[in-house]
């Protein structure tokens, strides 16, 4: 099994079902993560996002995914842009929808879901779950504590195999890696 996962795979993720939690009621909603291509860019209204996702969709070697609930696939709760760096997955951007930001956020778990998704991809591509990113200096400690991320050089950080597996298992209960 481990050997299979280490083989580079050429695949397209269509759906992955997980959940987010309503910040007020605690109600849990099943979610799915789907890829958005340049042709589907109209799904993302610029006004709803802080970052320029349209530019991201045009980026070479960048894949953008949206997190939605199963009940309402038209509303994106969060977006992530990742790149395949051939020995690890790189997280270019991640953003929760406006209504999922700050103290009055409607749903919890959006960012965690998306990071776990990147980690899962890193396992499935055979990169032992290694996911790298650039962190804001003031958030380095936060990522260390919440994601278990390690500093490679300054604000260049990465989520290593063990921590990555822990994140994936937290969000994708069906995931298995290594010996069964």
């Amino acid at each position, binding site marked *: 099994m481990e050997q299979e996962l280490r083989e580079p795979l050429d695949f397209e993720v269509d759906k992955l079902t997980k959940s*987010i*939690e309503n910040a007020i009621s*605690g109600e*849990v909603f099943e979610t799915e993560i789907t890829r958005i291509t340049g042709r589907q860019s109209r799904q993302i209204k610029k006004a709803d996002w802080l*970052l320029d996702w349209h530019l991201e969709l045009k980026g070479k070697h960048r894949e953008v995914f949206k997190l939605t609930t199963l009940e309402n696939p038209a509303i994106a709760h969060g977006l992530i842009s990742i790149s395949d*760096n*051939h*020995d*690890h997955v*790189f*997280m*270019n*951007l*991640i*953003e*929760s929808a406006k209504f999922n*930001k*700050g103290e009055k*956020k409607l749903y*919890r*778990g*959006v*960012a*965690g879901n998306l*990071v776990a998704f990147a980690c899962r991809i890193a396992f499935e591509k055979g990169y*032992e779950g*290694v996911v*790298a*990113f*650039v*962190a*804001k200096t003031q*958030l380095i400690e*936060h*990522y260390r*504590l*919440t*994601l278990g991320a390690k500093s*490679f*050089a300054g*604000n*260049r950080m*990465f989520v290593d195999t063990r921590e990555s597996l822990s994140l994936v298992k*937290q969000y994708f209960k069906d995931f298995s890696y290594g010996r069964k």
Partner: protein
Amino acid sequence: MAENKKIDEKDLVFINQQWTDEEKKSFSDFLRTRKKRKSTQKNDRNTTPNKTFTAGGLDRKVS
């Protein structure tokens, strides 16, 4: 869901910035070296160690 809350305490924002080519290379070297080391350690574990017997082991003399 406790962990979800922890991650969400602050909104995760990554800087839209790539690692430099030098950093990427350095990171790749680090991953490669580590993989090699892990593989060597794995092989070491698979090697049959020299047999050593202690008292009570196979070469215990029975009087």
